[in-house]
């Protein structure tokens, strides 16, 4: 009855709905279907192979490394970005000299494109002429192979991401912090609550929802990491900085025009 009453409206939205389904659902289903085939696009030959594609991918060392690296990157970068962002939001909640100017400076890295940030850090990380190794040698320490040593290449990229995206967490959390009614903090202070307790017992619990939201947004973004790896290390040395995105790019775009792409996208 309800459907019949609204049928005219359904009729009106039907064309756009069909178009949307065709542009979104159909490609996904098509890719899913192709993933069960050994598909030679050039020769247009399809051979049904069940789950073999998936088995091959999961057992591939490169995929395993890429997955593990992505997980590490996402976890560590998000943790630091949200943590530091919160810390900065608390610092900037107070009043101090030239606060506005510092704030502008703080959000500057976020405004730069990933390629520009990567180019800056590629120079800073350079083994022979980089600023970081220059400072280390001035302090009498050994230079570090920031991007060329497999054991620290991923950490170096994480550091770049933290530098660029901590301001994002900072801005969102600072805005949320300012929306908390000041009366709550005043009442706590009048009751003699110390600042650390105010932060732990009042501020963080109130901001918890926003902190989770920022963490989720950063997790989604870091999981798609591609640009920095591509510009800084191209997945190397070895597989040290391969991520799921670079893996998909390598397998799907560099090696085969279609090939294994479907099974990666599923």
């Amino acid at each position: 009855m309800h459907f019949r009453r609204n049928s005219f409206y359904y009729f009106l939205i039907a064309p756009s709905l069909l178009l949307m389904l065709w542009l979104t659902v159909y490609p996904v289903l098509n890719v899913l279907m192709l993933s069960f085939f050994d598909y030679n696009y050039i020769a247009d030959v399809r051979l049904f192979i069940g789950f073999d594609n998936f088995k091959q991918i999961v057992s591939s060392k490169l995929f395993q490394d890429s997955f593990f690296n992505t997980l590490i990157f996402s976890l560590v970068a998000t943790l630091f970005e949200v943590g530091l962002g919160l810390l900065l939001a608390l610092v900037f909640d107070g009043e101090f000299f030239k606060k506005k100017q510092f704030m502008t400076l703080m959000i500057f890295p976020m405004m730069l494109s990933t390629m520009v940030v990567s180019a800056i850090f590629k120079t800073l990380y350079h083994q022979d002429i980089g600023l970081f190794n220059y400072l280390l040698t001035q302090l009498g320490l050994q230079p570090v192979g920031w991007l060329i040593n497999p054991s620290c290449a991923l950490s170096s990229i994480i550091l770049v991401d933290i530098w660029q995206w901590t301001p994002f967490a900072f801005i969102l959390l600072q805005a949320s912090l300012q929306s908390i009614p000041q009366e709550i903090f005043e009442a706590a202070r009048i009751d003699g609550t110390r600042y650390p307790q105010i932060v732990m017992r009042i501020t963080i619990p109130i901001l918890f929802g926003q902190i989770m939201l920022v963490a989720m947004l950063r997790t989604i973004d870091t999981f798609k990491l591609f640009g920095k790896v591509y510009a800084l290390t191209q997945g190397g040395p070895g597989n040290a900085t391969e991520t799921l995105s670079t893996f998909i790019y390598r397998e799907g775009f560099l090696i085969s025009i279609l090939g294994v792409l479907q099974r990666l996208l599923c």
Partner: protein
Amino acid sequence: MKSNTKHMARMWVSVVLSMALTGVLFAAGAKESVGLKQITLTIAGRDGAYGDSLQLAADEYQKLHPEVSFEILKLSGANLFEKTVIDLRSKTGTYDLILIDDPNAPQYQEVNWLADLDAMYAKKGLQVDSDFIKPALDLGRYPYNEKGTLFALPFAGNVELFAYRTDLFEKYGFGEPQTWTELLKAVKTIDAKEAGVDGVVFRGAKGNPIVTAFMPIFWAFGGKVLDEDGKVTINSPEGIKALKYFLEMAKYAPLGVTMYQSAQVRDALYGGTAAVVPEVWPGWIGNLENPQESHVVGKVKVTKHPGEVVKSSPMIGAWLVAIPESSKQHEAAFDFMLFLTGYEMQLAMSDAYGLPPSRSSVYKVESQRVKYPWYDAQLDALINSVARPRSIKWKEIEDILGGVLQVAIMGQMSAEQALASAQQSVEDMVR
């Protein structure tokens, strides 16, 4: 009333005259267009010097044939491959000519996407010019042998070269290395004794770069990726010897060589911090003798690679030009193709943009030999060159080999383990 009728009559006469005049003009125009049938040739080409060279050839051809116009797509290598595969597979006939990177050629040839050039030559009563450098010409044949049908002509005769510092070799008493073993002695000595100079610098980034650096050594030591029957033969005693040599040589490369791409290698070569660069391409060395760009003017010799148990084996990296079977303008496309790969245009493109010629006569032109002092060596390298395996799976093989080579250089695998792993992975993939 009378004047009104007169006015109307005048109007009608004007309209009729205008229509008649328009008709005459259109008829004349139509006659003109029948006389000069306009043709547009669409070319899927490369960017950079390749694209500029194509444009030069198109402009020159248009001067001789005003009825032919061109639409040239200047694409990156990956984009070119993707676009042409999609178009040729769907047989839409968008492109009349396409450029093909030689290792990709079997993929097009195996599925009959390219027009048979032997038939076109025969139809015109012509024969393939013997001036084409044979190893470059043979890349366009399928099957890959002298008798294979010709599907593409060589547009650019690109080949991998070898460069070393003559001043440093002389200083430490070494002549031009004839074998890789001889070379290693020089590399070790110079690396140890010459401050600020690395014994060897090559592209160590995984995938295509490191494979390209390794292949001339692998082949010279007698290694083969696939045998004549297509069986995987990467893990052979010859291959292991070659990789052991490569790993030994890599000890004298700069720290972080596993991340080196062409930019870093060129910097080292031009900056004078490399004694030996076992992989240089003609496109990298255009300014080597330019004092404003190079610190090593007159100090570097570019030549073909040393041999070992087999003769010098530089890798050929030619770009081919072909006519898609689906093109609707085979005849016009073939005529332009002959012009593009002809002596005059090859010379003009070499002169204007440094395009590596695919004809041996161009390498012997005095003005070009002065302009590009390595032309003798380049021709020599081309004649001695080795093609990458003619397999439709080469990209996958290269990726697997490129991965294990880098892991071996990083010390995480021995030569034996690396090649055993590559052999297994390639066999699994080919299966």
